[in-house]
């Protein structure tokens, strides 16, 4: 359980969102996240996020696939079960290139997608708090996390002054939990947790 307090402001135009992000950060507020309906270019930079290294992982997975294919095939055809295919050399590298290539692509793609899901903590039955249902539709939702120093009223006023439309305060779970989207409660929830929540 990681319950925190957030000030949430929604924007309907990315041209208003960008300057607002800049000002909110300058004013010293801690932006928890910005939820957008599509990838907004440059927003990650504006939020000060570092580049992802997912592609590096993909490269390593690809090399793993290549090595797997080469070592496996050469072991089979030159050591484990030597066969004479029309008098050709046992170590016939050119003929293995297609499979080596395919396994490179396969390992890289599968590995990257699994890593992506792991990093973003995504899987069936994973549920996360919705700050606004319209974040997947037409609104850009900025979520400011309230720290001990944050004055909630000031933060709300600051967001309003910078063009946010629908401003509210939410107390919510910051992480993910196992749950279903058609039910509000968590799966595997204990009775006491349900009572205190």
């Amino acid at each position: 359980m990681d319950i925190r307090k957030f000030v949430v402001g929604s924007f309907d135009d990315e041209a208003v969102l960008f300057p607002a992000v800049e000002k909110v950060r300058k004013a010293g507020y801690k932006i928890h996240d910005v939820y957008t309906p599509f990838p907004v270019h440059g927003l990650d930079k504006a939020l000060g996020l570092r580049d992802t290294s997912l592609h590096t992982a993909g490269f390593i997975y690809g090399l793993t696939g290549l090595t797997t294919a080469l070592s496996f095939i050469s072991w089979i055809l030159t050591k484990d079960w030597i066969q004479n295919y029309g008098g050709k050399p046992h170590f016939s590298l050119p003929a293995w290139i297609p499979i080596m290539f395919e396994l490179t692509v396969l390992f890289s793609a599968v590995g990257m997608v699994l890593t992506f899901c792991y990093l973003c903590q995504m899987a069936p039955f994973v549920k996360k708090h919705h700050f606004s249902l319209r974040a997947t539709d037409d609104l850009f939702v900025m979520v400011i996390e309230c720290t001990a120093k944050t004055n909630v009223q000031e933060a709300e006023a600051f967001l309003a002054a910078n063009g946010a439309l629908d401003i509210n305060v939410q107390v919510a779970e910051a992480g993910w939990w196992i749950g279903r989207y058609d039910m509000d409660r968590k799966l595997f929830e204990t009775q006491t947790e349900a009572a205190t929540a």
Partner: protein
Amino acid sequence: MSVIKYESFVREPLIDGDKTYKQVTEDIVYTIEAKPTRLWHIGFWISVALLLFGVYSLYKEVVYGTGQWNLGKTIGWGWDITNFVWWVGIGHAGTLISAILLLFRQGWRTGVNRAAEAMTIFAVMCAGQFPIWHMGRVWMAFFVMPYPNTRGPLWPNFNSPLLWDVFAISTYFTVSLLFWYSGLLPDFATVRDRAKTKLRKLLYGMASFGWNGSTKHWQRFESLSLVLAGLSTPLVLSVHTIVSFDFATSIVPGWHTTIFPPYFVAGAVFSGFAMVQTLMLIVRKVMNLQDYITLGHIEAMNKVIVLTGSIVGCAYLTELFIAWYGANQYEYDIFYKYRIAGAYGWSYWLMMTCNVISPQLFWFRKLRRNIGFTFFMSIIVNVGMWFERFVIIVSSLYRDYLPSSWSLYYRPTIFEVGFYLGTFGLFFFCFFLFAKYFPTIAIAEVKSILKTSGESYKAKMGDLEKLSLEEFDKKMNHHH
């Protein structure tokens, strides 16, 4: 997905009408939330019937063996391998649109990539059926998998193009599926967050993996799709190259040619785009998506068709030239006695007319933008491409080095035809379900180009053209 913040005013808009982000969601999710139409039910149940006939044809083949098919002494590959190559070819356009056009920053791909990728996946599923059931003893199919076993261990032959095919097709299917599904996650989340019924919340909630549109997630998402596009681009070229190796590495006259890989890849893109046209023209009409799949999209795809059709035409002529110039008697006979003439000469000329001559009409802009003509041509091209594979396979096989093995005229049995019809059933069964329950257009991607390529936004951009370079830079890059 490009970083272009401004598209030239001269370019045609990619999204017609006066749209907002909300309107884009409404337009595309509408079909999921509405009840299926009468037309949908008719189409769906026809595909189910075809699928069942295919299952019955396969049942006959499995129980009584490949003797249920009219394969002969030399024609060991008939309709089934023709169908295999045809379906794999069709399965090339989706990845081409989603991967290669992404790398080339072609904005128009956003309107059609989702449905084209779905088509790819279903086409590869259909293609995979043919080599598997052609094995005859299909219960031994697992022999192609390389794993330590008690048969020696007897490994498959890694030097064989037929095994390369196993790896190529299964990798292609897996990677296309992952690419397609990862792109679907944000759109499933959109459907989930609008859902009113419990069932829809549950199912789309599961399918969206808890996607919430976080900026960091989008950053990783973009990195993932870019790398998957980079991987899929050589992959899509490799798949039909490897399929062509099934023929090219043999010593059968008419197959033993080095031109096959590029010729097959061009042919695959050609037939794939034709199939995309067939489906898109129906989808945009039935689901009222004319604003997203515009005449501009149709024209762009017709340009690809005329280009690849011409490449295929060059390949046909090159083959004929080399058969003469190469001075190999067997090669010469296959082409000049048994392909363009002989018992199957009609299929060669049908192929030439459908694939080479008729697509040349697309040099005319009026015809490229004519919906009825495009639909007609898309069918013609796919008929032609089916006959291309039939010509390659059957006209090379019905005559042999040994005249005593020359086969009788090859006609498919009802079960060979039934198997083919069955894959149509499978294909459309999947496609109808997709069109009803999945977002047929990539919602998030369309939104990301809306303000640069939407009609109403472009109309307001006239002023930008008048700015000086410094003013333009200042205006467009205000947030950096």
